[in-house]
């Protein structure tokens, strides 16, 4: 895995994701960060990204709209997306998976929770 894109309006939340990815063995040499979906789409025009970790509740462009854009573009439809959000429960999990999320995890993210989850998805395993 070369490049991970973390999308969250909170700098603290982005730092937690960075730390958890590293502790879970996803040690990408390049980590990009964006504060909302629109900024993330701008970055995706300039960078090849192997994994996206995105929040849902963000200003400008929220996570659900961001995933819809990703899945509708031939350049980005294949990129795995891990949703990390406080809004996650069983109802949201099913809905987000149908929209194209690869994994759905509740905040606060923990290294063990992320490590266990990514083992269930072959394309995400380190």
């Amino acid at each position, binding site marked *: 895995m070369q490049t991970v894109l973390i999308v969250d309006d909170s700098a603290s939340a982005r*730092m937690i994701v960075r730390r958890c990815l590293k502790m879970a063995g996803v040690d990408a040499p390049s980590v990009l960060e964006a504060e909302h979906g629109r900024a993330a789409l701008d970055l995706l025009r300039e960078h090849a990204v192997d994994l996206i970790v995105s929040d849902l509740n963000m200003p400008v462009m929220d996570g659900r709209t961001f995933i819809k854009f990703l899945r509708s573009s031939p350049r980005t439809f294949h990129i795995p997306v891990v949703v990390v959000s*406080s809004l996650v*429960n069983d*109802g949201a999990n099913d809905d987000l998976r149908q929209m194209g999320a690869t994994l759905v995890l509740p*905040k*606060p993210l923990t290294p063990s929770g992320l490590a266990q989850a990514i083992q269930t998805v072959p394309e995400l395993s380190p």
Partner: protein
Amino acid sequence: MSLPPALVDETVATIFESMFFAMAEPEEGEALPAGVSRLAATVKLLSPMQGALRVELGEGVPRELFDTLWAGEREGSDAADAELAAELVNTLAGQIVARAAPGAIVQIGLPLVAESIAAGEGTRRSYRLDSGGAVVIALA
């Protein structure tokens, strides 16, 4: 609006432990009475229940939590404290509602660092951190 106190207590404890390695124990009485300095952040609850949730952090608590979370990687500041409080209220509100309505799609607003629930409105629950810091969750 009211939610089961046990659900709120369990969610608060889980989030403080996971994010900050801190124990948050429920406390009888008012941990942050009127006139005591605090940093407050509020978020609107939009669906499936409507209302607002505010977190109030006693003096020194935001910086203590920030320093634990960032472990020296970033310098603390008033803006950083506010950003942390906003993320905390977002996480608490989202997870409290998501756990209260497990089959529902949850929607909340964007966090606002301000006391937008007037004092005396809604339900207040007080917590004491193992460091001695005071935290209040207000639901309206």
